[in-house]
């Protein structure tokens, strides 16, 4: 059945004005904090991800940029012997959507914090979280929810138990849905099921700020997660005094969104009641080593196309355009 939703939506006056304004405000925010803009080419000539839009340039198969982080990582690892520490970007990506009504062309602004010293991780993560706290104000978004998770809280136990890929996927899906019964179904006869299910229970406990992390001390893997929990506590302590009015911080160890990619703390920004996050990011220490560089990195991306949709459907969430 043909999908009639515009996959490549045209932005008319107000939406175009908002896009320009938001891009400008976010890039100014990032530049004030020392992030320098890079603009990777829209056309990729390297191997392409499966969800790319591909076409022939003469006899050569090329693709449109489908993700800034990966494009920037390729560019940086090829061009720089040492990583530029702070990088920002703005522009469009083209990606086949998971849901048929989502646009293929999406506008994003984001930043990456790259470093060589592993000890720099806590400081870099807090720096990014503080920047993300400033995003709603820059966008004129009234209120929001910052969801703080940590990919290693599920990754470490799964690694420790040597779960095969299919079982890992099923467990991640179950935890992402906050579904203990689906986790039990997935693990059924696995020998580590009692331990992993006890851990899942602690991840899924209703959480409330720093107190919520205490549940994880009852996990069978608490010993293996000491460093990650200290890191989360440290991040929380640094962020709580900085929370702007109208922004709520929710610590959610069950937020396993993007687990195959992220390796450490994860952040997502939501508008109250909105069904999709408006910004997302986290630590991804696996990408640069894959590209031959022993660098560590974290970043986040603000999904301007979703914000434009939200401004149309729920204008009361935003300050009016001047």
């Amino acid at each position: 059945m043909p999908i009639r939703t515009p996959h490549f939506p045209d932005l008319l006056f107000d939406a175009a004005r908002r896009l320009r304004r938001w891009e400008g405000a976010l890039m100014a925010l990032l530049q004030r904090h020392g992030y320098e803009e890079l603009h990777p080419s829209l056309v990729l000539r390297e191997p392409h991800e499966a969800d790319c839009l591909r076409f022939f340039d003469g006899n050569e198969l090329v693709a449109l940029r489908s993700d800034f982080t990966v494009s920037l990582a390729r560019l940086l690892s090829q061009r720089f012997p040492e990583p530029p520490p702070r990088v920002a970007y703005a522009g469009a990506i083209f990606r086949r959507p998971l849901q048929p009504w989502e646009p293929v062309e999406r506008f994003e602004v984001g930043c990456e914090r790259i470093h060589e010293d592993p000890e720099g991780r806590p400081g870099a993560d807090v720096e990014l979280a503080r920047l993300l706290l400033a995003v709603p104000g820059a966008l004129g978004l009234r209120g929001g929810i910052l969801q703080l998770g940590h990919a290693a809280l599920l990754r470490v136990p799964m690694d420790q138990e040597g779960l095969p890929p299919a079982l890992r996927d099923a467990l991640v899906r179950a935890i992402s849905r906050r579904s203990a019964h689906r986790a039990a179904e997935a693990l059924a006869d696995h020998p580590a099921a009692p331990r992993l299910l006890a851990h899942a229970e602690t991840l899924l406990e209703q959480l409330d700020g720093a107190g919520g992390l205490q549940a994880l001390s009852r996990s069978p893997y608490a010993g293996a997660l000491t460093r990650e929990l200290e890191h989360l506590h440290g991040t929380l302590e640094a962020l709580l005094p900085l929370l702007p009015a109208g922004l709520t911080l929710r610590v959610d160890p069950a937020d396993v969104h993007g687990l195959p990619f992220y390796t450490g703390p994860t952040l997502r920004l939501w508008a109250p009641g909105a069904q999709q996050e408006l910004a997302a990011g986290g630590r991804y220490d696996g990408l640069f080593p894959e590209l031959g560089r022993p660098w560590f990195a974290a970043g986040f991306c603000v999904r301007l196309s979703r914000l434009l949709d939200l401004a149309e459907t729920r204008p009361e969430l935003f300050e009016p355009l001047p």
Partner: protein
Amino acid sequence: MTLTPAPLLLALPKGRLGDDLMPLLEQSPLALDREALRTRALRIPTATPGVEALLLKGSDLPRYVAGGVAALGVVGSDTLDETPVDVLELADLGLGLCRLSLCAPEPQDLESLRRRPHLRLATKFPVATEAWLEREGLTAEIVPLSSSAELAPLLGLADAIVDLVQTGSTLRAHGLREVATLARCSGRLIASRGAFLSQPERIQPLVKILIQVLNRK
């Protein structure tokens, strides 16, 4: 300033699952207003102020929750697994228990179906059927139907069916038998991701009430 719309909506299913659920809600804080039920009211007040119910067809219900219209909902896992939506699945309510099974005319069994060069399966559950075929390493033509799948093998439209089985009496009446179980199905409590994150203080108590009410069944 409160930005989320009040009241909070609870999506409840019409049909067999709804018939099982409604009597359990009576006398509970989520009992539906009898007067409103007799009218064509879209939103049915409950015994808890600020909480209203929507009565929806099961196949539509997950979309109302995923879209954030309803904060919570009750839906069968068979329906949920067929609907590509991002919702939280907070509890298995153990309601409307049944199984999704591969059923074939007597005396066929799974091995005889496996040996067919071109297997045709009629079903209302193509997503779960495709997932099972993949797990089993089988290929089949799926014949999508919206009702009375059990007629398909009798009339030559398909070799077997994938359908919900509760007691098995309908199958036996049509000369069919279960040859494999694909999944255990039951009513699930689902929640909108955005609402759960935005208003946990309103949603959590309702989740507890629903689970307590259904545990008493």
